[in-house]
């Protein structure tokens, strides 16, 4: 397959006449962007965890739909770039007005796990580049890949072959400091032959690529944007 099955972009779906379609699309955007936004506010704007959590909640529950998505013009900027600029404006205004949101004051339409995000900042820093654009991009990629890995795991379980995901996780989901096992090691550990390990890994990578590209398709607004994002994600400098 040269091109992922077309899914309407989430931004387009937030403008649907169907309320349920709009709700799911909005939830997808929040899922993809809340964590990059929270970390961005913490690191670029040097907000405390509580301040960043309040602003993130406020941004995604109240500001996102009416002030951000409605005014978005795909031909002028990538949605990710545009959203980050809106977030900058939002944080700047909040700072100017010395607005102090009471914790929990906003209406949470999805539970945002700020504690986990805070733990991630602690565990990943200072490996994250200081460049704020790069930081937002990297966190966006992290969120995209997290969802894609979860989808892959779910797909492997649904097909009754969770061991296939195990092979993928042992080889391609390594933490800092962990070394890649050999195929023979994995075969021994999982009770498979090395050839089966090879086949499982190839199949999982193939499926993972399809999932990632489809999710990327959802989060972009045009073919050109999708191509540029896919090329950067899969081929860009590390």
């Amino acid at each position, binding site marked *: 397959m040269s091109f992922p099955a077309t899914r309407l972009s989430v931004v387009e779906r937030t403008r649907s006449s169907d309320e349920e379609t709009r709700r799911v699309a909005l939830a997808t955007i929040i899922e993809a962007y809340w964590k990059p936004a929270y970390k961005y506010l913490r690191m670029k704007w040097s907000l405390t965890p509580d301040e960043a959590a309040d602003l993130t909640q406020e941004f995604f529950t109240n500001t996102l739909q009416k002030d951000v998505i409605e005014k978005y013009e795909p031909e002028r900027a990538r949605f990710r770039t545009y959203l980050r600029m809106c977030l900058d404006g939002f944080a700047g205004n909040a700072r100017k007005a010395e607005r102090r949101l009471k914790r929990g004051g906003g209406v949470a339409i999805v539970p945002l796990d700020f504690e986990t995000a805070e733990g991630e900042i602690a*565990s990943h820093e200072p490996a994250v580049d200081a460049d704020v654009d790069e930081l937002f991009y990297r966190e966006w990629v*992290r969120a995209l890949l997290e969802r894609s890995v979860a989808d892959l795991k779910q797909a492997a379980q649904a097909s009754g072959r969770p061991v296939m995901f195990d092979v993928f996780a042992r080889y391609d989901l390594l933490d800092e400091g962990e070394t890649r096992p050999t195929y023979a090691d994995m075969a021994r550990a999982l009770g498979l032959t090395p050839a089966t390990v090879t086949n499982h890994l190839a199949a999982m990578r193939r499926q993972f690529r399809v999932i990632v590209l489809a999710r990327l398709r959802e989060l972009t607004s045009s073919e050109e944007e999708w191509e540029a994002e896919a090329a950067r994600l*899969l081929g860009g400098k590390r």
Partner: protein
Amino acid sequence: MGSRSGQTAGRQTLISNRAIDRLREAAAWPELDARYEITGVAGRGGMGTVYVARDHVLDREVAVKVLDVADQKGSRAARLQREAHILARLDHPGIVPVHDAGELPDGRTFYVMKLVKGRRLDDLVAQNAALADRLNAFGRVLDAVAFAHAHGVVHRDLKPENVMVGGFGEVYVMDWGVAQDSSAESDAAVVGTPGFMPPEQERPRAPVDARADIFALGALLAHLAGEAAPRALRAIAEKARDPDANRRYQNVESLAADLARFRNQDPIEAYRESIGEQAVRLYRRYELPVLLLLAYIVMRFVVLVWRGI
């Protein structure tokens, strides 16, 4: 593997920075047939990634350039295919040979080429290689580019990063991805690298001729020569990268000829030297005869003076 990021925490899997890189690599990993076994990544470019692979049929290492993403319009695929075809057509010792080409099951285009081991030209400069070695490498680049021009191909992205120097001094001009030949359509976007790109190439859809490469070769020569280079050498580089294409060397051969004159300490076309500079150059070129002549004159003078006494 107790703390492996594959374990889930809450709804989602936590992914470390390193895992992000691994996952990006995993999603991009090409699925080739059994003949080629990918063993690593050699480099990443604007359009694709170059992998190191084992060719099990011929039992040798090769490089495989794979498109990062197959676009719907197919323009990226067409460009990579054109690059492979250009390489196949340009059979020259200074141009990397292509062995095979095809399409992956996921639709991405790839081609297989010789794996060039060595260092990039910018590394040669960084490692303070002797000027003579740098100029030798540059001379080989000129040969390869002249060959391409003779076949109607303009590289359009000549720069130190796109030249590899092997362990035996062999030189390869790489990355012909934006090369222009008679089959190329005009590019909607600007192609090339600032600093190595002539003014006429900075306009989208602007067709360029071989003199665009002359400009890049001038920039390459200036980079290789360094700021401490002799004035005549700098003049050659400056003439080659004149903003006005009509004032540059009009072909690679005339640039190569002027460079050869510089290396032979003959007067060059790019620069009119003063009488003093001419004297210094002639002295350097004919150092031994000049010294012998001077010694003879001094000796005759001494003899005359001695007889006069």
